[in-house]
C-alpha cells in the first residue's frame, strides 16, 4: 500500500480538477487584473466566476464583501487588528471575547492585543470539548467590541453552536467573527442562516491551493485594511490579485458544496469505521461524541503510548497523522487546545488526530486500523506505564 494521508485538518490534496483549472494562469493568462490592457482584462470573466462560486458557497449577498487574502491567518489578523484600530483604540470599547481553543493565529493575535491594553476573555470548553452559547452571553459586557469563536475545532473536530452564538451577539449588538477554516466542506456554512459579521476561511483546507484565503465582511461593516497599498479589493486588501489562487479556491468551494452530501455520508461512514476499529483497542479514549464533530475527524488517546512515538510508527508504515503531544512540538509546549480540554494531563502527551477527506478510501481505512493497532501494541510492549 502506498502512503495514506490522514492529516486533512492540516492541509488537503489539491483536487485534480482545481489544479487543471489553475493551469492557464501561469504561462498564458498571466496578466495583472488591475492593468487596463487585454492581458489584464482577459482574466476578469474567470475571476468573476470564481467570486460567484465563493459567494454561492457561503450564501453571501451582493452587498457583502468576500475579500481575498493570502490565508486564514491573514483574515483573522485583519479582523482582530481591524477591530482594535477601529473600535478599541478610539476608546469606545476595550474587550474581546474568544475561547481557549482557538487556532494560534487568533490566540496569539489576542495575546498581542492584550499587550496593547485590550482585555480578553478566554472561554473554556465543556466536557464535550464544546464552547457554550450561554458562556458567550455571560462574558459580553457593554465594553465588548468583538466575539471571536471558531466554527469547528481543528484538533478535536468539535463543532461549536455558531448560529446560537451569532444570534446572542446580534441580540447584544456585539460584532461576531468566526474562524470557519475547519468547517468549509464539512458542514453547511450559510451566512443567511447564521448572522456572523466576519468569517475567515482558507483554500487549502478544502482541496484548493495553499497561499489563498478569504474574509467575509457583512454588508455595511468596515474594517481598516491590514495590508495598505494599491486599490485592489476596493482598497480593503491591497496586493496584486492571486489569480490562479482565486480561480482555484473558487472551484474548490463549489466542489466542496457539491460534495457536502458525500462528506456527511461516506466520509462520515469511513471515519466512524475507523473510530469503531480503534475503539477495539483496550484503554483508548476518543474526545467528544461523534455527532458533535465534523464528519472527518477523530482525536484518540492511547493510554501508555506517547503521541510522537505513535506518530513515528504510523509514519514508518506510511500513515500521516498528527499529534498535539508536547514532545512533537519545536517548543516542547503541550498543545494548548489539548490542555484546555482538561481531560487529564496524560492526554497532552498521548493524543493522535486522524482526519479524513473525500479522497480517503475504504482500503486506506482498513489498513490504518490494522497499522494503528499494531503500532499501539508495539509501543505498549515497551511502555513502562502500561
Amino acid at each position, binding site marked *: 500500500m502506498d502512503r495514506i494521508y490522514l492529516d486533512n485538518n492540516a492541509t488537503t490534496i489539491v483536487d485534480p480538477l482545481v489544479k487543471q483549472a489553475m493551469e492557464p494562469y501561469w504561462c498564458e493568462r498571466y496578466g495583472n487584473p488591475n492593468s487596463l490592457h487585454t492581458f489584464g482584462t482577459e482574466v476578469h470573466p474567470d475571476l468573476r466566476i470564481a467570486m460567484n462560486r465563493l459567494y454561492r458557497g457561503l450564501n453571501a449577498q451582493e452587498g457583502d464583501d468576500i475579500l481575498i487574502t493570502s490565508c486564514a491567518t491573514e483574515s483573522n489578523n485583519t479582523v482582530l487588528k481591524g477591530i482594535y484600530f477601529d473600535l478599541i483604540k478610539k476608546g469606545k470599547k476595550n474587550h474581546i471575547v474568544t475561547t481557549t481553543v482557538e487556532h494560534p493565529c487568533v490566540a496569539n493575535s489576542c495575546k498581542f492585543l492584550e499587550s496593547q491594553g485590550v482585555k480578553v476573555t478566554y472561554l473554556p470548553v465543556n466536557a464535550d470539548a464544546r464552547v457554550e452559547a450561554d458562556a458567550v452571553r455571560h462574558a459580553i459586557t457593554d465594553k465588548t467590541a468583538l466575539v471571536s469563536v471558531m466554527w469547528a475545532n481543528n484538533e478535536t473536530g468539535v463543532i461549536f453552536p455558531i448560529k446560537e452564538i451569532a444570534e446572542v451577539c446580534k441580540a447584544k449588538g456585539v460584532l461576531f467573527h468566526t474562524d470557519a477554516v475547519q468547517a468549509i466542506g464539512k458542514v453547511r456554512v450559510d451566512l443567511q442562516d447564521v448572522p456572523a459579521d466576519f468569517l475567515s476561511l482558507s483554500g487549502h483546507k478544502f482541496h484548493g491551493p495553499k497561499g489563498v484565503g478569504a474574509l467575509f465582511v457583512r454588508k455595511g461593516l468596515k474594517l481598516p485594511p491590514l495590508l495598505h497599498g494599491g486599490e485592489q479589493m476596493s482598497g480593503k486588501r491591497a496586493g496584486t490579485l492571486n489569480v490562479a489562487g482565486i480561480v482555484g479556491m473558487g472551484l474548490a468551494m463549489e466542489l466542496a458544496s457539491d460534495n457536502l452530501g458525500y462528506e456527511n455520508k461516506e466520509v462520515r461512514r469511513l471515519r466512524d469505521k475507523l473510530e469503531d476499529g480503534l475503539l477495539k483497542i483496550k484503554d483508548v479514549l476518543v474526545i467528544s461524541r461523534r455527532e458533535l464533530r465534523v464528519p472527518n475527524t477523530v482525536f484518540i488517546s492511547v493510554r*501508555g503510548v*506517547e503521541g510522537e512515538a505513535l506518530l513515528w510508527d504510523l509514519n514508518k508504515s506510511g500513515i500521516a497523522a498528527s499529534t498535539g503531544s*508536547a514532545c512533537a512540538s*519545536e517548543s*516542547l509546549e503541550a498543545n494548548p487546545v489539548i490542555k484546555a480540554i482538561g481531560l487529564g494531563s496524560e492526554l497532552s502527551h498521548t493524543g493522535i488526530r486522524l482526519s479524513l477527506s473525500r479522497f480517503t478510501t475504504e482500503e486506506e481505512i482498513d489498513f490504518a486500523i490494522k497499522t494503528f493497532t499494531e503500532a499501539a501494541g508495539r509501543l505498549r*510492549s*515497551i*511502555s513502562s506505564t502500561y
Partner: protein
Amino acid sequence: MAKNDLIGGALWEAYSKKVAARMDNPKNRGELTEADAKKLGGKLVIADHGAESCGDAVRLYWVVDAKTNVIKAARFKSFGCGTAIASSDMMSDLCVGKTVDEAAKITNIDVEKALRDTPETPAVPPQKMHCSVMAYDVIKKAVAQYKGVDLSALETETIVCECGRVSLGTIVDAIRLNDLKTVEDITHYTKAGGFCKSCIAPGGHEKRQHYLVDILRDTRAAMEKEKLHAGMETQEFSSMTLVRKLKAVEKILNEDLRPMLAADGGDVELVDLKESAGVVEIHVQYRGACMGCPSAGTNTLSAIETVLGQKLGVKIKVVAV
C-alpha cells in the same frame, strides 16, 4: 541559523540514524526478573523515574554482581517519544560491563554522544536533549537503590540546565568572569538554556528550581554592589569632599533604606550633613507615611543610623528635622 529555521518542521530530520534505528528496534527493551538475576548470579535492581503526566517515564532493570558490583545485564521500559526510547536503549548498553560507581558517572551527554552518527553532529535537535536527561536520572536512582543510600547523597552540585548538565557554579562564574549581561550570553558561553529552554525562565516545559533570568539578575546585582563597595573603600569617608560625602549618603539611602521605607509608603530626604568631634551628624526630613509615624523617631531613626554607620565606617548620628 535564520535561513535554516524559517521553514520549520525539521524535528525528525535532525534525528541521527542511530536514534531512528534504536527507536524502531530497541534491543534492550523489556524486563529483567528475579529468575534472570538468579541465572546470572546477581542482584536485581529496578528503578523508576518520571510519570506519564510529565510526558516521560522510564523504568531501568539491572542485574548486578554483588561481589564485583559489575552490571551484568540492563533492560528498560519507557513511556516517551522516539528520542526517549532511543536514549534509554543506548543508556542500557552503556551500563553493561561497568561497575555501579562507573555507571553513576554516565550522563545524558554521554548517551547523546553515543547516539551520534558522526562525532560532530548532535544525535538529536537541541530541544530533544531533554529526553535523554531521563536516562541519566534513572541511573542515579538505580545506583541509590543498589547502595541503599538516599538519592541526595549522590548529588554533588546543583545542576541548572539538566539537558546540558551545566551547574549553578559554572553559570555564576561565567557571568562574573565575562561580565555577561543577557541570558543569550549565558547560553553562548555555557550552553545552559540552549536545549529544552525550561531553565531560562518560569513557564517553560518543566518547572525548575533555578532559572537563568534569576541567576543573571542576582549575580549582576551582587556584582554592582561589590563594585560600589570597592569604589567606596578606596577612599575613607572622612577624607572625601562634602559633595562626595553627600553622594555617598544618598547612595545608601537609595539602595538600602528607601526601598524599606517605601514598602510602608514612607520616604526620607537628606537635608544637611555636619561633622563635629568625629561624629557625622546627618539631618533628614521624613516624607509620606513616615511623617507622624510613631516609630519614626525611634526604631526607624536608629535603623538608618546603624545602616549608614556600617556602610560608611564612621560614627553617625541621625537627626530628624
